């Protein structure tokens, strides 16, 4: 279940949106069921759809963040609680509620920012002006009015809003002071009550259904349309894979030196970067780049390069979150040995860091490639009508209401994204000794 919760993270947004449409849209199974029951069908376009899609994306993230909070409670606390004869209520009061008070505000702000800066969802489901977000307004000022000043101003508003929220989030996400434990396995002596088990199973079942159903619908609809897809979709796929690979290389090329800097100089650069990239959404960065580059070159010609670059920047904080702790551990374990042997510079990189960091590097590479593969942001501003990546091609098919072809493209996008992640993540694990 936790693995499944990780999937939406590398799942291309636009694919998920399509999946949600096929479940909750006018022709989707929920509406069909409502019509059959004699009720009004639901509409996914507009504000309620945007909210629904964001729940779909952030439910897993929230679960993971809060789960980390639970895992951070040392097993010894639960053992002590059991020894003292605590019931579920007592455990909740003394252990879980303090933890939640620490974790939930941080998770709340992170998700708030993600929703604030999300673009693809609002683009695909937003519809009328009533459901317009700032991100979408930037895009519209850009694409339809071509008012660069207005786009820049909106971008500024966005950065200030998200930046404020990001700073608040960093302040709030302090670790809970529960003290260290000895990494014993947690046994929950209070989980025996049947009522609690049914309650847990019910919630987990509902959440799984909510997350898995849209993906299943895409696989079903898409498989049928695969054979008849227009050639342009396949061309866009190749373009996207190229962008994803370039973006991945850029991410690693940036992440490794930054991680080294952060670990050896104890620089706070990681937090600063994370805040910056959360606050400045791809679209805002894209706007800036467009204003800079527009007078110099034709935006359509550099679309893919800019997309790769911006996506690399966006994947950077995630890559760093994987690499920095691992590098810290490597330096703690082997730093003095390497110092004593005179392993410096290139030798240290190739003989110590790269071999010891294969797993996190593989994970980061997979994540960067998958995120870049599925991104629908900057490319919307730069691409010429005949160019563009697979997510953009998919969006254009949706906008033209060619839903069968869209499902086929979505299936390809989904498969390629997951495959990219899987290949690199696996690559880091193969014969990596402990």
């Amino acid at each position, binding site marked *: 279940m936790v693995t499944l919760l990780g999937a939406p993270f590398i799942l291309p947004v636009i694919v998920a949106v399509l999946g949600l449409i096929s479940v909750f849209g006018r022709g989707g199974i929920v509406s069909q069921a409502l019509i059959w029951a004699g009720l009004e069908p639901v509409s996914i376009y507009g504000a309620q759809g945007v909210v629904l899609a964001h729940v779909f994306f952030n439910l897993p993230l929230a679960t993971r963040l809060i789960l980390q909070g639970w895992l951070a409670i040392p097993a010894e606390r639960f053992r002590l609680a059991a020894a003292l004869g605590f019931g579920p209520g007592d455990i909740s009061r003394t252990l879980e509620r303090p933890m939640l008070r620490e974790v939930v505000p941080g998770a709340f702000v992170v998700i708030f920012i993600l929703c604030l800066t999300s673009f693809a969802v609002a683009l695909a489901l937003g519809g009328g002006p009533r459901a317009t977000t700032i991100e979408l307004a930037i895009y519209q000022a850009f694409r339809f009015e071509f008012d660069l000043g207005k786009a820049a101003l909106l971008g500024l508003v966005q950065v200030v809003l998200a930046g404020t929220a990001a700073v608040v989030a960093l302040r709030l996400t302090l670790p809970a002071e529960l003290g260290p434990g000895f990494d014993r396995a947690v046994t929950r002596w209070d989980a025996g009550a049947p009522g609690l088990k049914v309650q847990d199973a019910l919630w987990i079942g509902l959440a799984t259904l909510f997350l898995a159903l849209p993906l299943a619908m895409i696989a079903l609809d898409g498989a049928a349309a695969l054979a008849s897809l227009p050639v342009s979709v396949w061309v866009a796929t190749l373009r996207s894979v190229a962008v994803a690979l370039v973006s991945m290389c850029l991410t690693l090329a940036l992440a490794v030196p930054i991680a080294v800097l952060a670990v050896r100089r104890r620089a706070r650069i990681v937090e600063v970067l994370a805040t910056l990239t959360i606050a400045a959404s791809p679209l805002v960065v894209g706007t800036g780049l467009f204003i800079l580059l527009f007078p110099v070159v034709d935006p359509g010609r550099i679309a893919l390069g800019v997309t790769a670059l911006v996506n690399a920047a966006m994947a950077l904080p995630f890559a760093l979150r994987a690499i920095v702790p691992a590098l810290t551990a490597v330096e703690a374990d082997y730093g*003095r040995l390497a*110092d004593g*042997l*005179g*392993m*410096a510079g*290139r030798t240290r990189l190739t003989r110590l860091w790269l071999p010891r960091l294969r797993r996190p590097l593989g994970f980061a590479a997979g994540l960067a490639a998958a995120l870049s593969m599925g991104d629908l942001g900057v490319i919307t501003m730069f691409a010429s009508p005949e160019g563009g990546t697979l997510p953009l091609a998919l969006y254009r098919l949706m906008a033209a209401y060619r839903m069968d072809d869209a499902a086929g493209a979505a299936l390809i996008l989904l498969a390629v994204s997951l495959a990219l992640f899987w290949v690199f993540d696996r690559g880091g694990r193969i014969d990596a*000794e402990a």
Partner: protein
Amino acid sequence: MLRLEGLRARWGDWTLSADLVIGTGDKVALIGPSGAGKSTLLGLIAGHENPEAGRVLWDGADLTGRPPAERPMSMIFQDNNLFPHMSAAQNVGLGLRPDLKLGRDQWRAVEAALDRVGLGGFGKRKPGQLSGGQVARVALARVLLQHKPVVLLDEAFGALGPALRAEMLDLVASLAEETGATLLIVSHEPGDARRIADSVVLVADGVAHPPVATAEIFDNPPPAFTAYLGG
């Protein structure tokens, strides 16, 4: 001759000072209560930590501020002495060149060093396929190959059982005698000191005292040493 001249380190309100001389070829044990600064002292000598004041001198040359690899010293730590992603031979070869660009003669020297510690033919194995005692021997083979005048043991072999540790210490002592190396060891076990050390440096109450002959300090222990031994 290793000279610590007015050496001082500080960590908050914790301090350590040392003003002493250790003769070339001596085998010295650093003994004292935990937290007194034995490992810190070794770190200062090896260059992993920087002193607040004072100098470290070897045969009159000032080593203070030099990076660890440029000092005439090799060190064995409590653990993580081998890189798990490299074979035993590669781990030993690092002692010759950190980038492992070794000629055929050098690889032969690596094999000879492994032979000398009783691990002939084990060169291709990775640390994960070796026992704790074998891992310690590989680390020793590297020290042998580095051929530096001073060998530092920072609670090395601490993870081994008593019999195996005694065996390793004997091996270290005989290797040191062969090469004429000066040996400094930090250990929690007074028995280790009696086994191989000629003299003892007592580290207690923020001071590393000048070395005293091992037999003498155990026969006429100063108060701090008695307190450490527990009666």
